[in-house]
């Protein structure tokens, strides 16, 4: 088992549970949740090295959640997952370039091995 602990956040429960099972089969310690408030609560309860989060979450945008995570847990690496095109360009247009804390933008459907590699690179450099 890898020593990397990752939290996957997506409101599609069938997607997030399957992703977590597949990440675990590849040696990562992975947990999941389906909402922003739940994610913040999980991060308070346990240390995570990285979060993989959907850009479009109910009630809170992925970017807003990412900002709150970075404020409260600055060491946590963020990988964005989205089904929306052109996100990198959108991030680049944000005032002050709000993207530096985001390590990767992954477009759905995500290849599992690519996701594992990106998580490991984000955490271990």
């Amino acid at each position, binding site marked *: 088992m890898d020593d990397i602990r990752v939290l996957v956040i997506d409101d599609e429960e069938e997607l997030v549970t*399957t992703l977590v099972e*597949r990440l675990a089969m590849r040696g990562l310690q992975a947990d999941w949740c389906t909402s922003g408030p739940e994610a913040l609560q999980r991060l308070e309860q346990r240390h995570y090295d990285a979060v993989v989060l959907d850009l479009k979450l109910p009630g809170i945008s992925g970017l807003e959640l990412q900002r709150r995570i970075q404020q409260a847990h600055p060491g946590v690496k963020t990988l964005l997952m989205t089904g929306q095109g052109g996100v990198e360009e959108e991030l680049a247009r944000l005032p002050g370039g709000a993207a530096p804390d985001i390590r990767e933008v992954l477009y759905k459907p995500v290849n599992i091995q690519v996701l594992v590699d990106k998580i490991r690179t984000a955490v271990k450099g």
Partner: protein
Amino acid sequence: MPWSPDPRWRDSDLAFFGAVTAGATHELNNVFSIIEQTAGLLEDWCADPEADVPAGCDKILNVTERIARQVQRGTELVRRLNGFAHSADEPCCNQEMNDLLENLLALMERFAAQRRVRLVFEPAGAPVTLTTRPFILEQAVFLAVSAALAGTAAQGIVTVQLTGGGAGVEITITGAPALPEAELPAAVGAWLGPPLWNLEGRVRTAARAGKYAIVLTIPKISEEVP
């Protein structure tokens, strides 16, 4: 809290069309993602002799059922998106209104879910066929429902009710107010004016007991259907 649809949706038919299409295709991407990961999980189990797959087939059946469920979800989304796209085929036609609204509101469910609001459709008791401009009517309903969603707090409900018959219908969108009652009519009239002019319709608002309603009155259009 802003109580208005996104200005881009008011100013351009194409922007409205794009918003609905983007919402549906985003949903489709989730469907494909779940199918891909679920099929991948089956592959993982086959490739890993130590995978925790019970001797019985329950776990595998659960996974294949998940794939079947997502295929069904995707198929329905495509059918609804196809129906929406075809509503622009004829500028004016005889349209069954229960079907039109049910389809549009199903495509709008994602917009409601993003705000954690429930969108409920109350169809007319019997089929209602109206001579109208379906695409413009969809735009008017989309704008009104978007405004209701924007003003309704999480866990709230927005209801769309259809009443009437072949001579004309009323579509009543009920939600929660985010503007003082006195400001509602002017705000609603401003952004619903252009589509309603094309539909020969009118709008009125009512606010009472913490709820408001936008009532669209859409008559049978005077133009002859070819």
